[in-house]
């Protein structure tokens, strides 16, 4: 059975289980499972998630099956006489050992996955991510680009009004984080005030942004997965915690290189006296970049 077939079966089973997941795909009834995502990490997380879900489903069906069978067979209304047994060392040893074996079976791939996820070495691009109440700052360490990312004003305006007026309501920003596909990107994550967490589900990982400490995570977006990916702050950070989205614009190598050149040129034009210093390289977005993502 191929991975795709398995995945399809998995989604099908979940959909049936949910009852309401009919043909209607409006407003999220069809969103039932973890996304497979676009990075090796998200693929690992998805595979482990499905493995453990299925193990739990099988154990659940077995245990609840026996329980319901017992509820059906061993009811007083059927005129049964209760048995007297209250103990079986053999049974108890078996149902202690079997779960241990299953757990070892789970722990092995989980450990492998975890080790890969925590290996941030040999990154090609390094970006410093800083959380603020309530926006994100991205600093491209090698390329000297800095950008701020705020909730898109049309979303902000729609909060107390008509949410359908805003495209990608609450999940769009004024300036997205632009990333190259196919390159190992290391994020150095910290915060300026309270704890935030940087999370884009399609990229498969979240990490806390903690003031005074720098956390690391890495992303390598698959070569053929250029596109827009959306996420949110995932650690309660005050009143606008729900309003600091993250948008990643993943571009192919040439598109990314062109964007870097454009941003560096814009920065030189906007602030010639301070060009090259990372701290003040807060380039203004070009009119094109100002559009909501």
């Amino acid at each position, binding site marked *: 059975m191929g991975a795709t077939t398995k995945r399809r079966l998995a989604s099908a089973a979940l959909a049936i289980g949910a009852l309401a997941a009919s043909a209607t795909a409006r407003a999220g009834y069809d969103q039932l499972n973890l996304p497979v995502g676009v990075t090796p990490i998200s693929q690992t997380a998805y595979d482990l998630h499905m493995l453990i879900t299925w193990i739990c489903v099988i154990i659940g069906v077995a245990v609840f099956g026996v329980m319901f069978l*017992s509820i059906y067979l061993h009811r007083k209304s059927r005129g049964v006489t*209760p048995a007297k047994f209250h103990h079986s060392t053999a049974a108890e040893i078996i149902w202690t050992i079997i779960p241990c074996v299953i757990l070892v079976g789970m722990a092995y791939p989980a450990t492998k996955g*975890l080790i890969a996820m925590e290996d941030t070495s040999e990154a090609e691009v390094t970006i410093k991510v800083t959380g603020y109440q309530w926006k994100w700052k991205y600093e491209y360490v090698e390329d000297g680009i800095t950008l701020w990312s705020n909730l898109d004003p049309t979303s902000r305006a729609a909060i107390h009004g008509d949410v359908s007026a805003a495209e990608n309501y609450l999940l769009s920003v004024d300036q997205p984080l632009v990333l190259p596909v196919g390159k190992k990107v290391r994020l150095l994550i910290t915060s300026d005030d309270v704890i935030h967490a940087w999370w884009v589900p399609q990229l498969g*990982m*979240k990490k806390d942004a903690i*003031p005074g400490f720098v956390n690391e995570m890495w992303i390598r977006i698959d070569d053929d997965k250029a596109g827009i990916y959306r996420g949110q702050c995932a650690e309660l950070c005050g009143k606008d915690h729900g309003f600091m989205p993250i948008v990643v614009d993943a571009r192919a190598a040439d598109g990314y290189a062109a964007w870097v050149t454009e941003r560096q040129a814009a920065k030189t034009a906007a602030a010639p006296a301070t060009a090259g210093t990372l701290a003040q390289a807060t380039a203004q977005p070009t009119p094109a970049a100002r559009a909501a993502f």
Partner: protein
Amino acid sequence: MSSHTAHDEHHAHDDHHHGPEPGLMRWVYTTNHKDIGTLYMLFALLMFFVGGALAMGIRAELFQPGIQILEPELFNQFTTMHALIMVFGAVMPAWVGFANWQIPIMIGAPDMALPRMNNWSFWILPFAFTMLGMTFFIPGGAPAAGWTMYPPLVLQGGWNLAFMVFAVHLMGMSSIMGAINVIVTILNMRAPGMTLLRMPLFIWTWLITAFLLIAAMPVLAGAVTMLLTDRFFGTSFFNAAGGGDPVMFQHVFWFFGHPEVYIMILPAFGVVSQIIPTFARKPLFGYESMVYATASIAFLSFIVWAHHMFTVGMPLTGELFFMFTTMLIAVPTGVKVFNWVATMWRGAMTFETPMLFALAFVILFTIGGFSGLMLAIAPVDFQYHDTYFVVAHFHYVLVPGAVFALFAGAYYWLPKWTGHMYDEKLGQWHFWLSTISVNVLFFPQHFLGLAGMPRRIPDYAVQFADWNRISSLGGFAFGLSQLIFVYVVYKAIKGGEKATDRVWEGAHGLEWTLSSPPPYHSFNTPPKVTEAEAHS
């Protein structure tokens, strides 16, 4: 000493006094374990509705996208206070109420060992929760940084931080005194013949819970005190700029917090282990392994705490350690579930309300256990962490887990407590409405979390709209269904069919040898317990 003599005389006088004080002052002065148990449970029920009202507000705001009812500041106050009230005000006091009522009558004692302290530990609570609740009305509002109180966010709060810290101190004192009382009573006041391994499972689980309380609550008290001094006295325990570490708070908090979740669930295991044998008319399967499993879970609860913090950037070895230890909890928990199912097997079951709640507990708590096992897997927890998947998980173990066990126990012992049978028909209605609505409420939250909805947000992207609406409808239905329970309790207190001493055909244990309701001083003469009686 003359004063000593006077005291002795006074004491001799007391011995002739076999009933409660007349009037309302009975409830203020009482040192009687049943009165105090009743107070605890009524207080817990009140807090259940206060915390529930906050939850209704949360679900109303989340009914559709956009902000309609609760502005984000107030929404955060609602989620924080909902959790604090439900954990410390509803579930924990309810279990202490059960302990007070049940421990003496299940071990053959006249009362709890330390009756005056018992009175004090209850009467602290109304003051603690008044102090906590009044923060809604002070400048800056109620605490809004989540019940986990993570700094630096919590330090941005105003006066409410001080109110919350002192309220938590009071709750901690109350819990520790309650726990001391439970331990002293169980270890010293058992009837002759009731050896430790003849104690009912509910007594065992509460004994272990009491040790968890004594070990965990002071840790919380220390953590919140450090918050207090950081906020008001210029210390830097959790301030990186002053050489502190915000993550240290999380370690200390969860060193308390993980045992805390077992404090809420172990007595539930005990109650279910009393109820299933009664209605299966068959002895509990694997009594000793139940005791050892409970003790193992209690031990493991102290070495798994950082699984709540996989995303803080721990070293790989730390993540592996906490992943493995957390997965291990599945083994003793599995033993318990298997034992319950084996108890039912070849029994002769009937399905009165307590049994229905106990069966739903076994299934729905196990579902919460499964999602817990999934959350233990650190590489996937990076996706689940701080999403609605976590919200679904802990509500499954707490609501159809701990709260259903409380309902099961309440229906089981209500005839003993009041002397009247409760209304079985209404009880069944309460069960079915609660069980259906609680699943409509919480099951879709698994989907929301997996689809990417973070927890603790007042508003969400439109793709989350449908499941949130369904969840909210389930929530309103669940909230309303609980009014039936209040009516059932009220009706049973007022009157109804007289309960027999044994109440249930298959019931075994000392509490069923007493009259319903039991005499004011439970066992004046200690009963004798034999091996055959203890495990029948």
